[in-house]
């Protein structure tokens, strides 16, 4: 019994130690390997942007961003790089056109289409809880979700995941 309790004690220590290494701010996405949610929103160009635009295109990237979000500016060069290999789509959260247009003009636009999520409800539909967040979508299924800015060191993951087989 004594040894058993000792084992339980060390097991608890192990679990707690493992827990220390996890980032409590990182919430795993519940959409992985599932079909992308249905949506239909206005695009920056005034057209309709729907889930159909993301399906049947092989591998695409969907990036949630806003011009008012500083980390989004940090990941911007990386998105520009990625847009050379795969189509990148964007959804701007609670962003006015008059703020977004100069921002894109200054930094350049990696996006094929930008959807306007005026009230932030579309972000909830995708389980987004902070900006920026990036999804890799393959044939209409969510393959990967990245929380926070895509940094130089994250590019490798993206290149591997989006490589065309």
């Amino acid at each position, binding site marked *: 019994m004594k040894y058993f309790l000792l084992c339980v004690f060390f097991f608890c220590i192990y679990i707690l130690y493992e827990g220390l290494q996890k980032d409590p701010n990182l919430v795993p996405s519940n959409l992985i390997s599932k079909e992308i949610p249905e949506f239909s929103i206005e695009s920056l160009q005034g057209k309709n942007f729907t889930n159909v635009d993301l399906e049947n295109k092989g591998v695409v990237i969907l990036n949630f961003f806003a011009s008012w979000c500083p980390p989004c500016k940090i990941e911007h060069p990386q998105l520009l790089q990625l847009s050379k290999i795969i189509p990148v789509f964007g959804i701007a959260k609670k962003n006015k056109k008059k703020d977004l247009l100069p921002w894109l003009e200054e930094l350049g636009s990696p996006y094929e289409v930008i959807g306007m999520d005026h009230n*932030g409800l579309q972000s909830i539909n995708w389980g987004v809880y902070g900006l920026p967040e990036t999804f890799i979508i393959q044939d209409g299924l969510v393959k990967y979700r990245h929380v926070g800015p895509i940094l130089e060191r994250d590019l490798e993951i993206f290149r591997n995941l989006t490589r065309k087989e």
Partner: protein
Amino acid sequence: MIIFIFFMNIILSEAIAIEPNEILKNKELEAQARAIGKELRCLVCQNEDIQNSNADIAKDLRKIVRIKLEKGESKEEIMDFIHSKYGDFVLFSPPLRLDTAGLWLLPISFFILLTFYFFRKR
């Protein structure tokens, strides 16, 4: 001083982050919305419910709960919707499944084990 503390207590215990323009006119629906809000965890603030949080995401979640209530959706439907988007993390009481069984059963089994151990020693 005592009176001051007394009143501060009342004020603080009633403090919720809902803004006046969020509140629904229908009192019954508003009460339902608050009941739901208490069961949903704000995702960016550790262990705060969306009712009490000023975070942007909490505000949006409160809004979608109210929109859906006004559409006539039930509490279960709304909880299922938000659960399907954000996973178990958003619920304060996660569902009992095979992979969450430890969460629910370990405390009980510890209690039983220790009571057993305690009484056997006597």
